């Protein structure tokens, strides 16, 4: 579907591309076009944020903050040449990482190195009181367990997994978004999968022992 320069606003939003909807919202103040953009992407964005912070209330706040920025800054900072969703994801990602880092800053870091596990404090730190938050979403047991395993991944590995899963973002874009080389992004994904495999194996072993 093509847009023309008339004042006519098409009603078949579902068939339109993101850039056309963005154009309608920016140039013709068409709030329904923005509504369609929300319908398309809100679940992915919210899922990404939630999977990163593992807390419903925090996810709500970050999601709202993200879209407030999107609405208020779309006229000034969004360049229509780029993908709108990539721009929104960058805002969501930055807001999420800012939140996670702020939370970590408030923790007493005197015990930052664990001699027994020889791991860095930040790698072991769950985000806020994340454990046990997902049951509020009425997820089945296996999904809850998967989310739990993912929440235990180091932040940078989790970020790569979630950006790839929810946005099918190419590794090149993930690398740009997270300010690392493409090899580092690929490596993080590899470590994330290896860590998850270990966790699945441990879980499987526990279940076998129970039986």
């Amino acid at each position: 579907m093509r847009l023309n320069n008339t004042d006519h606003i098409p009603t078949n939003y579902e068939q339109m591309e993101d850039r056309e909807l963005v154009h309608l919202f920016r140039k013709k103040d068409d709030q329904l076009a923005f509504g369609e953009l929300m319908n398309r992407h809100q679940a992915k964005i919210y899922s990404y944020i939630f999977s990163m912070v593992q807390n419903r209330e925090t996810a709500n706040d970050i999601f709202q903050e993200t879209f407030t920025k999107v609405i208020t800054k779309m006229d000034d900072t969004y360049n229509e040449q780029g993908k709108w969703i990539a721009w929104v994801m960058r805002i969501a990602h930055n807001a999420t990482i800012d939140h996670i880092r702020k939370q970590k800053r408030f923790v007493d870091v005197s015990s930052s190195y664990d001699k027994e596990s020889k791991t860095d404090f930040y790698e072991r730190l769950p985000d806020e009181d994340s454990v046990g938050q997902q049951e509020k979403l009425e997820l089945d047991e296996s999904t809850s367990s998967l989310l739990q395993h993912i929440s235990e991944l180091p932040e940078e590995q989790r970020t790569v997994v979630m950006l790839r899963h929810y946005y099918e973002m190419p590794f090149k874009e993930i690398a740009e978004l997270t300010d690392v080389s493409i090899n580092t992004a690929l490596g993080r994904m590899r470590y994330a999968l290896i860590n998850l495999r270990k966790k699945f194996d441990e879980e499987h072993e526990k279940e076998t022992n129970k039986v």
Partner: protein
Amino acid sequence: MKNKDTNSISFIFNEMDPSEEVEFERELRASNNLLIDVESLKNTKKQLDRLPQINPPEHISNSIRLLAAKKAASSKRRKQFTVYSAVAAVLVAGFMSGIYFYDSPEPNQTADQAIMGGGNNLQQLVVPAPSAGKDLTPWVDQNEVLRFTDQFQPGENATFDTVFRNSFQKLTPVTDPVQSRAYQRNLQLTGSNQ
């Protein structure tokens, strides 16, 4: 990290060039360890497909839509205001230029006449008409007094007498010469019956 390790991830996530893919498949056939590693990573990746898509709470979505609606409305108002302002500016400019062209001096008028008010009627009210045939030329005498000569026409004697009488009656005799000396007299009034 070795290139081989990142290649496994590129291969699993379909991010390899066709030529690289062919090369990597050749390596897979040649190495059982690599094949096991890739299959294991693939299986773990499959587990991620169970990750749910979670919708934000309804009230959060609604508040965002409301914000978008408010922004759209205010943007519309701003655009309308800009249009109205532009229209008003054009109208005012047109009105002003209309006035300017309506009141502009005729080509044979002098600049002084135009400055004095533009219209011929107004100019006649302000500038007294020069006396016909009279040319007043002032001069300065040896006492540095500015003088000029004028004549009343016959029939204007009565006017002259009235002016003279009124002016004379305004003069008062000097009663205190000491006090009068306190003032510095810079202006000397003179008169002539000529």
